[in-house]
């Protein structure tokens, strides 16, 4: 049996080994990177921090206490990795594209870089993670005590052990988490160390499993039989709880700050995710493979103690397998330390970026956020945050006294961070999600969770406010966390899960629907939701190879090919590398940045160059400056766009006006030519016949009378034509004076029929409907009659039916009055319909009939002045014209 001191020595050696791995990895990364550093396997192994000491020890405990329920903790992540792989990929892509540093940053960035949301998520994450960190400390001290117990070489001081462990972890995290002065958010040393720990963890659990199956039992067959016979097999399955826990674990893998850190922030190559998609579920399956056998062995073997959470250790120990037990101890130690390290790193990033730095900036009103001084402040803030987070975990551990069962603390933690889920997933998938919705959702879920689960947990351990909890605040029963809404729940976790996530999601959706996003929010929303359209895959970074190429490509895009080319050639010449690309020396980079800043703004230029050279990450101040610049540039370019759109419109209008003028000129020429023709034709007859009358002597009276009449008729025709032309001109210029008055439609029709000489017994039979005509109008009766006369005369002239007939139908309704004139002639040929309202356009069929061809053109103008219209209705039988008067022309009869 190992002594306590021996155990401490092993731990120290192990931790030194971790330090060594970390240092080697950092060095390798600086020198261009070894392949294993940037491999999907390392990435997958780093994801295994999901399996903490809680999993390592607690799963066996859970199996011993409540059967197969522990499987849900693996089922959730497996389902997410298999079914929601696209969502993970989107998260990783967004994380890289937006240079996201933490889950709080992700939420804040999505909702318009909201500082308030970042603080809220940070507080939530700290509160949710602190118990979990204390849980890890507890598991380490507990495993120490188990080991040391049989030897009794001096009982270990568990309190002191925890302090030492916490201090050591803080040191490790500070060394490898805040190592680089440029605040690079990726930490190859740290990731390598936790990947190594993942292997130790797996090896330990597989070794114990193999020992139990082949050492304790006689192989798998016997083991299965033992499981069948044990209490675990008889444990009932609770469907609701299974579903709830699976959802919870699935949410946790997305929302846990440490998972976000390894999944998104530390991801160096998007393709790694594809491997992790199957490898991580496989890892989880291997980890959980022997949980039940170990639990069965623990339950059945003597001397394994009464805490099933420790069966992993007590089973080999009770059978004298000290070496195996030591391996298990190291596995548990690995599980605990890797979780604490990454969690502390993730939390410290959030605390320093979203709480400490903004406060410090406000306090000092620092002028230039990009100075080295500022970086040192940021690093200090982060280091202090790491120490602070671990200190909080330690305090919680001291307060809780290590009494709580491991699994329940883990689940409470899960539900806490799961409150981020609706805002996270909603923000990625739904552009309509707004900051107000996210704040309402997270805030409400947070409060419900804290009240229903966190507070009772603290109170139970602290024993401070128990009466308030069971009776409700101010004695209000339904507010009591033990009976929320008056529910007497047998499963507080499940109740809290449904209530907190339900209210959270509901308020998130309602808040988003009823609030309006600001421009930055909308911009970010689009960037997140459509990330695959906006960014290309950020594949593996291979040191500085190709940096100059990439810089040139970027510079060309921004400055134009010619200018960028000259800049680069000049720089190359300066470096004595004429004809080649320049080395990305600090001098050159500074110059390039200055040039780029002229086009895109200083902060953006810095961020772009930094992103390509991989030299520096972008800090909070940086991001804000970029956001400001982007907003200004967008504003400016949208103004330019509006201006050029205006110009284009003016040009278009000018073009249209010009085309119209040209067309009008052509029309005027054609019109004059037409008028000339129309005037000359009657004048020809008049001149010829008057000359005949003058020159012919003698002439018989009949001929003289006939010729005189022709001269007379043609003179009238000329006069009529001139009248029509003047009328049309007045109408078209809009200078017509209308004599509005009340008049009955029937009367106007009577007048028109009379004036056209179409009374009963005339050439054409008129069919009317006196009832429908009983409409009183407010209009110019003379003008309306003019239109009717024109239509009736046209029918008289052109209707070629054997028994010509004109039907006048009247329809009056809310839209106005329509008077339709339909004759029973052959109608107008379709090819000539377009000409009907043209001036002088007497159709072929109308040739030889009197009239200058202005009637319908005038009628159309008259109806336009009266606020209505005149239209031709094509129909199979006869010619139909429809006169329309507006509703305002209607007067109650």
């Amino acid at each position, binding site marked *: 049996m190992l002594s306590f001191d021996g155990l401490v020595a092993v731990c120290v050696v192990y931790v030194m080994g971790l330090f060594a791995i970390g240092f080697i990895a950092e060095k390798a990364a600086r020198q261009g990177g070894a392949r294993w550093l940037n491999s999907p396997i390392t990435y997958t192994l780093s994801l295994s921090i999901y399996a903490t000491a809680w999993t390592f020890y607690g799963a066996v405990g859970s199996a011993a206490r409540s059967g197969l329920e522990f499987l849900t903790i693996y089922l959730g992540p497996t389902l997410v990795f298999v079914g929601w792989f696209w969502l993970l990929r989107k998260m990783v892509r967004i994380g890289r594209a937006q240079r996201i540093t933490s889950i709080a940053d992700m939420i804040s960035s999505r909702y318009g870089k909201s500082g308030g949301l970042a603080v809220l998520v940070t507080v939530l994450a700290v509160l949710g993670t602190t118990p979990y960190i204390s849980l890890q400390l507890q598991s380490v001290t507990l495993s120490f005590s188990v080991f040391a117990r049989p030897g009794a070489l001096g009982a270990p001081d568990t309190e002191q052990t925890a302090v030492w462990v916490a201090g050591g972890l803080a040191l490790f995290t500070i060394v490898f988490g805040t190592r680089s002065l440029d605040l690079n958010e990726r930490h190859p040393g740290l990731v390598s160390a936790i990947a190594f720990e993942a292997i130790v963890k797996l090896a330990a659990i597989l070794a114990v499993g193999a020992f139990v199956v082949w050492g304790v039992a006689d192989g798998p067959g016997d083991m299965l039989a033992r499981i069948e016979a044990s209490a675990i097999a008889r444990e009932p399955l609770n469907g609701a709880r299974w579903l709830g826990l699976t959802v919870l674990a699935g949410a946790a893998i997305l929302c846990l700050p440490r998972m976000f850190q390894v999944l998104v922030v530390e991801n160096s190559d998007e393709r790694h995710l594809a491997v992790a998609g199957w490898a991580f579920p496989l890892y989880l399956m291997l980890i959980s493979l022997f949980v039940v056998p170990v639990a069965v062995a623990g339950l059945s073997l003597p001397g394994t103690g009464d805490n099933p959470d420790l069966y992993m250790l007590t089973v080999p120990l009770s059978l004298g397998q000290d070496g195996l037990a030591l391996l298990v101890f190291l596995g548990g130690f690995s599980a605990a330390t890797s979780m604490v390290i990454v969690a502390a790193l993730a939390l410290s990033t959030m605390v320093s970026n979203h709480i400490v730095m903004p406060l410090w900036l406000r306090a000092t009103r620092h002028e230039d956020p990009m100075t080295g001084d500022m970086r040192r402040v940021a690093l200090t803030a982060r280091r202090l945050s790491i120490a602070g987070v671990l200190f909080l975990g330690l305090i919680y551990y001291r307060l809780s006294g290590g009494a709580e069962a491991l699994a329940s603390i883990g689940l409470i933690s899960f539900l806490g961070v799961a409150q981020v889920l609706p805002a996270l997933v909603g923000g990625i998938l739904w552009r309509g999600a707004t900051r107000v919705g996210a704040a309402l959702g997270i805030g409400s879920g947070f409060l419900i969770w804290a009240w229903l689960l966190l507070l009772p947990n603290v109170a139970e351990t602290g024993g401070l406010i128990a009466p308030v909890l069971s009776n409700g605040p101010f004695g209000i029963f339904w507010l009591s966390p033990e009976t929320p809404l008056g529910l007497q729940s047998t499963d507080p976790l499940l109740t809290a899960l449904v209530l907190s996530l339900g209210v959270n999601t509901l308020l998130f959706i309602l808040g988003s629907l009823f609030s309006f996003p600001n421009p930055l929010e909308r911009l970010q929303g689009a960037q997140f939701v459509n990330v695959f359209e906006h960014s290309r895959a950020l594949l593996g970074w291979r040191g500085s190879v190709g940096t100059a190429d990439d810089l040139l490509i970027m510079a060309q895009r921004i400055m134009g090919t010619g200018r960028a080319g000259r800049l680069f050639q000049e720089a190359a010449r300066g470096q004595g590398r004429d004809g080649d690309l320049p080395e990305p020396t600090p001098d050159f980079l500074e110059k390039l940045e200055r040039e780029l800043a002229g086009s895109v703004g200083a902060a953006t230029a810095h961020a772009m160059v930094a992103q390509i050279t991989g030299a520096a990450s972008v800090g909070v101040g940086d991001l804000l400056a970029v956001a400001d610049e982007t907003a200004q540039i967008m504003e400016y370019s949208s103004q330019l766009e509006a201006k050029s759109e205006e110009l284009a419109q003016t040009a278009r209008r000018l073009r249209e006006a010009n085309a119209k003028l040209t067309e009008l000129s052509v029309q005027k020429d054609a019109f004059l030519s037409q008028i*000339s023709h129309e005037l000359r034709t009657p004048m020809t007859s008049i001149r010829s*016949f008057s000359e005949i009358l003058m*020159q012919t*002597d003698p002439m018989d009276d009949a001929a003289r009378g006939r010729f005189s009449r022709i001269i007379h008729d043609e003179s009238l025709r000329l006069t009529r034509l001139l009248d029509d032309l003047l009328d049309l001109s007045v109408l078209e210029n809009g200078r017509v004076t209308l004599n509005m008055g009340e008049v009955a439609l029937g009367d106007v029709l009577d007048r028109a029929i009379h004036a056209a000489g179409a009374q009963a017994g005339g050439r054409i039979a008129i069919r009317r409907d006196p009832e429908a005509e009983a409409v009183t109008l407010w209009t110019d009766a003379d003008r309306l009659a003019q239109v009717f006369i024109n239509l009736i005369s046209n029918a008289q002239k052109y209707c070629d039916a054997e028994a010509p007939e004109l039907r006048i139908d009247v329809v009056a309704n809310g839209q106005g009055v329509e008077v339709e004139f339909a004759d029973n002639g052959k109608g107008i040929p379709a090819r000539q319909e377009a000409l009907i309202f043209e001036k002088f356009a007497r159709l072929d069929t109308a040739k030889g009939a009197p009239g200058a061809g202005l009637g319908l053109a005038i009628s159309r103008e008259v109806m336009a002045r009266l606020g209505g219209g005149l239209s031709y209705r094509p129909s199979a039988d006869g010619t139909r014209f429809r006169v329309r008067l507006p509703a305002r022309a209607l007067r109650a009869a």
Partner: protein
Amino acid sequence: MTEQTKTGTGTILIVEDEGNILEALSFILRRAGWDVRGHGKGESALEEVARVAPDMLVLDVMLPGRSGLEILRDLRADAATADLPVLMLTAKGQAKDREQALAMGADAFLTKPFSNSELLEIVERLSGVDDFRPAAGQGS
């Protein structure tokens, strides 16, 4: 003024859609001794020319159905009527119409309204040039 001498020696076909103008033309030319036939439609004008076989043609430009210029072109394309003297009438009075008509082979061109003596002069001249073609081509 006294009754004019009858100088007409043949048949004149007038293609004109305005009835009153056709009547005036017919009266004037008949009085001058011509055998006058009238026709009012553009589309059947060519058939009418073939049927009547006139010694001279008075042709309006703006005709319903078919333009006088088109009819003129067809007449000139047909050997039987290529030499038929043609007097074009138009009410449009634009110089380009007149040039076009002459270029297409009209022997003379009159713009409405015209004086009766002007008409008779041209008709007489055209009946005389019959033997001297193709020296014709002057305008009114």
